[in-house]
């Protein structure tokens, strides 16, 4: 039963929406659910057992699963039954905090999907092949150095652009009227 000392702590990590659909998922142990069908079954099973109550931790199919939800999103980190639960929690907290900081606290599906590239990069900075690469959200954010896109900001920049162009046009018109 003793744990083989190893850096390979995380078996899988995934983010689901409030219908249990996969938005992002990574499996780091090739022996655990090798096929896509098994993975999605597992995710659905986990989702069904966890989405009703926010219990933080569960034990399913021989795996320890820690999780956290926010509005219409569910974040999961999976480890083996013998894994130190607090290490898995550290990973989950780092993932959630990093995403939350990156999305300026708007941790909901639409914003997340609009910045999916940033989310991919965040996960890549936290876990590398099952090894915890970084556990401090501040560090993750610095390393990813990602500029968030959100609709409002985009519209403002678009408006600015249009005003500049309009003013150019008026200038031209003014010039030509002379």
């Amino acid at each position: 039963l003793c744990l083989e000392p190893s850096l390979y702590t995380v078996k899988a990590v995934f983010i689901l929406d409030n219908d249990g659909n996969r938005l992002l998922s990574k499996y780091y142990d090739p022996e655990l659910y090798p096929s896509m069908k098994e993975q999605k079954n597992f995710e659905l099973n986990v989702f069904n057992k966890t989405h009703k109550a926010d219990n933080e931790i569960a034990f399913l199919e021989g795996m320890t699963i820690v999780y956290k939800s926010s509005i219409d999103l569910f974040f999961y980190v999976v480890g083996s039954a013998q894994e130190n639960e607090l290490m898995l929690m550290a990973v989950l907290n780092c993932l959630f905090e990093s995403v939350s900081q990156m999305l300026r606290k708007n941790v909901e599906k639409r914003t997340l999907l609009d910045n999916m590239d940033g989310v991919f990069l965040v996960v890549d900075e936290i876990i590398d092949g099952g090894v915890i690469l970084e556990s401090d959200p501040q560090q993750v954010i610095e390393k990813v150095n990602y500029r968030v896109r959100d609709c409002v900001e985009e519209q403002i920049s678009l408006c600015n652009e249009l005003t500049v162009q309009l003013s150019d046009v008026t200038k031209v018109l003014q010039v030509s009227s002379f």
Partner: protein
Amino acid sequence: MIKKFDKKDEESGSGSNPFQHLEKSAVLQEARIFNETPINPRRCLHILTKIIYLLNQGEHFGTTEATEAFFAMTRLFQSNDQTLRRMCYLTIKEMANISEDVIIVTSSLTKDMTGKEDVYRGPAIRALCRITDTTMLQAIERYMKQAIVDKVPSVSSSALVSSLHMVKMSFDVVKRWVNEAQEAASSDNIMVQYHALGLLYHLRKNDRLAVTKMLNKFTKSGLKSPFAYCMMIRIASKLLEETEGGHDSPLFDFIESCLRNKHEMVVYEAASAIVHMPNCTARELAPAVSVLQLFCSSPKAALRYAAVRTLNKVAMKHPSAVTACNLDLENLITDSNRSIATLAITTLLKTGSESSVDRLMKQISSFVSEISDEFKVVVVQAISALCQKYPRKHSVMMNFLSNMLRDDGGFEYKRAIVDCIISIIEENPESKETGLAHLCEFIEDCEHTVLATKILHLLGKEGPRTPTPSKYIRFIFNRVVLESEAVRAAAVSALAKFGAQNDDLLPSVLVLMKRCMMDSDDEVRDRATFYMNVLQQKQKALNAAYIFNGLSVSVPGLEKSLHQYTLEPSEKPFDMKTVPLATAPITEQKTEIAPVATSKLPEKLAPSRQDIYQEQLAAIPEFKGLGPLFKSSEPVQLTEAETEYVVRCIKHTFANHMIFQFDCTNTLNDQLLQRVLVQMEPSEAYEVLNYVPAPSLPYSQPSSCYSLVRLPEDDPTAVSCTFSCTMKYLVRDCDPNTGEPDDDGYDDEYVLEDLEVTVADHIQKVLKPNFGAAWDEIGDDNEKEETFALATVRTLDEAVNNIISFLGMQPCERSDKVPENKNSHVLFLAGVFRGGHDVLVRARLALADGVTMQVTVRSTDENVVDVILASVG
């Protein structure tokens, strides 16, 4: 502007997920803009995101289309947009296995990895190592070494972790970076230190000395990272386990000191390590238990869960150590996290008093339907343990179990319940009838063949001996009508047992058997015909041999013998006695059930330990023609644990010979031993025929040498003998670091402890499920009886255990369990003597002033009876 249009398209497509209706072909089409100049970073970024998203959803990319997209993507390295570059790295990693020729990006990645932009360097290293194979690794080795000791933490970490991934692939190359990793281990950055330690351990884990040194160094200097502490605790506890180090070792002190670490993660890891150590005393457990107790009231669910799960494990072995936490556990019963509540209740069931059982059972039944199967199994196991502890509570438990049996649940869960009921029946004769009734009801509607056959087998064994056996016949025959082949066959066998044991039921059983002979399945018909004919003879001996007590040979052994027989056809009929016997099944495993381990592996019939030995010995030419291996003993230690050479002996018994297998280990790293053999001096008329030396015994690589001994033929009663043993060998001194030996050597010897051969080495355990029938079958032709007084023995339990271990025979009918508060007991033992003679022993014990024992021995051979009585006296 373009982005704006994109957004509109998406929004009209689906309300909330812009990626929902992505078409792979459309996305790949879009990927063509990668080739446009100038590069539009935003659009390209968006398309790369779509590709990675599709891959993540499990979309299948063909090699050609993936390669095409990959090559187009390589153009994007021309752009200096940071996020775009990072997404390129991700794409490379994702596509490494599906696209061809991914190595073309090697030079771009190497440039980024050694370039000025620190943001790129770490991720570039990780991407590069993902696409590098052993041959190319040499080319980047120089850069990797530099990167490991780079002052930028992210670069160093990336290099260390990537090296760790590559250890599996090219251990020899990565091993050369050990000095760099050593340097990184003293880094100030917590993650770098953790990764460096992990890599160092993986590179050195086969060298115990180096691991010990590493531990000493870092436990003294202290670590910064809590992760690194957890890693060190695991290494330390593994080392303690391997070296069987005592709890006064500095390693144990280190683990214990971690209980006072400021990080909860480390404290928990240390507590859990202590709890999992084998043979920990209550005093050593106490500090670990008290930190776990504190965690029980933490606001964090994960911490409460971790604590109660670990306490649950402690409670299995040391329930008294956990009683201090009973109050905290009581508070967790109503925890909103059902997993925590279940674990708390099952722990309390193990530690609490008999009076609290009813209340806890009521509590747990209120939410048993809400918890997952894994935890239901935990509950069942707790109940099973409880039944052993409080046998009087069996009716409450039985009720609860039968309710659980009716609920929905998977196979593992049902199997746990059935096993639990069966063990209650075996422990408590009073619960037998209710238990059997519940099981009968269960097989009426049971979808698991394995469980149905198991229950039918149990009914066949126990049913005929109940007051009203007839009521079970209906349940069994229903199976014959309704179920699959395997279950029908099992039902037929069960029926036969009723017919054989109950004369008044025999006519009806014969009628039913006749019906079964019409079955559509071969196996069912065969069994029915066979039993029909045996039953019609109405002979007790036949019934005993063919219906109650089946074959006692090892199945792989039988298969091999039959195969051998078909290869060398002879006039003689096949002799069952030449087949090695099955080693008796170990029945005492209930207490050691892994708590919540769900085994995913299918159980296959592993060859037994003895079959493996048989194979190994048959491969040695000197040991040809000894016949089948009869018995292999447990290993006997011939040296103290902490000596220069460690030797243990396994005694292999054959029909007229014995082979002694000496497993030797050399614990001196500056010596190489050669031509190792153990010289034996027998005290009796045993004759040493042959020695097979171990050619070479290098440091810490165990090897075996053998001695072949002929048993005295003229005196069959000479079963015990003492051998004085001396190990003889040639020593060659060698360099401890390289293992290179000197040219010359010298002969030396080492005196070992004496080795005893006892009567138990000549007897193989055989379980007779129906002892009475077997007793009658052998008959009283060779019966002898004698009475002994065991003056030194104080209790019946002690006497029973002594007899069993002395004779090495299998206790039958659970007669090894002495009921409490009785002063007389009957012990039934069964076995087979070397040469294939059945032996049965009945020992009547009476407790007065000391224990008086009347031993009756029956066997198919007269000498065997004498041997046993002589050795007892």
